[in-house]
């Protein structure tokens, strides 16, 4: 009985794995990259939502953390491209190296998040946005001027490792993380900070500490997304991680509803597929983004979902309750 929580903890992935594996087989190769982009955008949107939606801190530095993750993982897979772990067949050895690269990407991005977050999270609102925006630009210009990182041309010739199984599981991990956070004591502390920082502090929430933690978690997943992207297009250039990329993610979560995981996921899917369908009008991409935002802010300022979640629906709750009761017995 003691082992049940552990099994339950990984249950989403046990179920998710065959689903994503099947998806990998079914999706035609022309749409493969679009599908990968959808999942990557889910990772980005949901993780940014932890900071901007849950905690109410306005960060514009997501692309910067993506870059940190992307370059870290690229360096690792490039360095280990010829290495084969003797006891494993080539395929599994490669996957293991990629898993390692993903973990490293998350770790370095998290460290970057910590370094940026600690001083800047004492600031509020616009100031935090400016600092994080500045951070993203700093990262980009460091890369553009660093020889080992390939300067403006970036790193090319990365192995193609990102498939729908990897991105699917990563997106699932992000959603599961956000959902578990939202329903926990820690998540409620984040919501409290969003609602009223003074009151949260007075009720025993270490507001600075929690903001930094949320920021670090969010940065780690942004790094993960960066690593996934670069191994999908086998390329890693500074131009992939401009300020515009950060704005795109902000648009996703504002559209979906700040604080709503469901909203982030749905807007990531709809917008990514929609933009792909409108590929002929690529030059209007940013115009359409801006238009969409203006229309939404005028008609539904809280975003499509507000702070609501799919699993908060009354019907689903009613369905869930008998099951939970059975479990208790």
């Amino acid at each position: 009985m003691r082992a049940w929580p552990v099994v339950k903890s990984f249950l989403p992935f046990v179920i998710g794995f065959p689903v994503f594996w099947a998806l990998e087989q079914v999706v035609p190769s022309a749409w493969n990259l679009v599908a990968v982009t959808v999942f990557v955008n889910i990772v980005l949107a949901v993780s940014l939502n932890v900071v901007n939606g849950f905690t109410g801190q306005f960060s514009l530095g997501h692309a910067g953390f993506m870059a940190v993750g992307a370059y870290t993982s690229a360096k690792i897979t490039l360095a280990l491209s010829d290495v084969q772990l003797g006891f494993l067949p080539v395929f599994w050895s490669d996957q293991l190296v990629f898993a390692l690269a993903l973990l490293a990407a998350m770790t370095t991005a998290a460290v970057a998040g910590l370094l940026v977050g600690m001083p800047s999270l004492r600031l509020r609102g616009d100031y935090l946005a400016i600092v994080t925006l500045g951070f993203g630009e700093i990262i980009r210009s460091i890369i553009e001027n660093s020889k080992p990182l390939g300067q403006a041309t970036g790193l090319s010739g990365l192995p193609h490792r990102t498939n729908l199984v990897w991105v699917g599981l990563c997106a699932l991990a992000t959603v599961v993380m956000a959902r578990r956070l939202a329903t926990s004591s820690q998540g409620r502390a984040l919501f409290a900070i969003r609602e009223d920082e003074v009151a949260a502090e007075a009720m025993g929430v270490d507001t600075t500490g929690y903001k930094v933690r949320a920021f670090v978690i969010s940065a780690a997943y942004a790094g993960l997304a960066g690593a996934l992207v670069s191994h999908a297009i086998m390329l890693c250039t500074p131009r992939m991680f401009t300020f515009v990329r950060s704005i795109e993610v902000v648009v996703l979560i504002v559209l979906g509803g700040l604080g709503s995981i469901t909203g982030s996921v749905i807007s990531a899917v709809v917008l990514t597929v929609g933009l792909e369908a409108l590929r002929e009008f690529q030059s209007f991409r940013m115009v359409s983004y801006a238009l969409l935002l203006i229309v939404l802010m005028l008609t539904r300022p809280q975003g499509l979902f507000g702070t609501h979640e799919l699993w908060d629906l009354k019907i689903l709750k009613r369905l869930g309750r008998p099951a939970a009761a059975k479990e208790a017995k």
Partner: protein
Amino acid sequence: MSANPLEVKNVTMRFGGLKALSEFTLTMAAGELVGMIGPNGAGKTTAFNAITGVYAPSEGDVLVAGERVNGLKPHQICAKGVARTFQNIRLFKQLSALDNVRVACHARCSAGFVDALYQTAHHAEEEARILARAEEYLAVMGLGHRRDELSRNLPYGEQRRLEIARALATGPNVLCLDEPAAGMNTAEKVELMQLIRSIRDRFGIAILVIEHDMKLVMGVSERLIVLDHGVTIAKGKPEEIRKDPKVIEAYLGDAYLEEKHMALPAGGEAK
């Protein structure tokens, strides 16, 4: 003998040239109900802010359970057992009544981020404990039926009570209530004061109340402390305060005197 839950020694608060509070001294024993009164701008809320760590005192010491807490952050002081409510309600508006209280239980929760992410057994136990605790405090404040309502949708009086429930859930030894009855009608005020008394009796905690309604605060508290322009002008039992000429002049004003058919204090002239 164990130390008093709250001891404030000669605390002075300066903002530039302004002395908002000077030489404020207050000792509270467990289970004591103390009222704090004074005209607008007398420094009552400043005293609260100095005690709860919103401001670090310019001079003097604040001791919680015998331990000096000057300069600690509000959440650290909260963890040591001082909780407060706010003059202008500061609930977490978009959260349900239950979640408002659950946030306050958070300080006494030992499960961390990792427990939450992996949904460990420890996490589940803590969450169950927090839920039970939060529901208990909601019930104590008569808000059990409002459990799932967003706090911003609650009527005013219930918002005030929810704030108290939230403060109680942090598990304090000292509860500071900043004008809990502001904006209530007389019947609601009387009910609230009875509730505050019953909280004190039930949990045995010291309660410090700022209140403007004299009748009310004199009826409910055992001891009063009167501030004016940051200076403590009187301390003592309600009966004594009522007769204190300084207090009458500074706070109650001549209207009160006329109402009570009392003599003007010696030398005090009606304005």
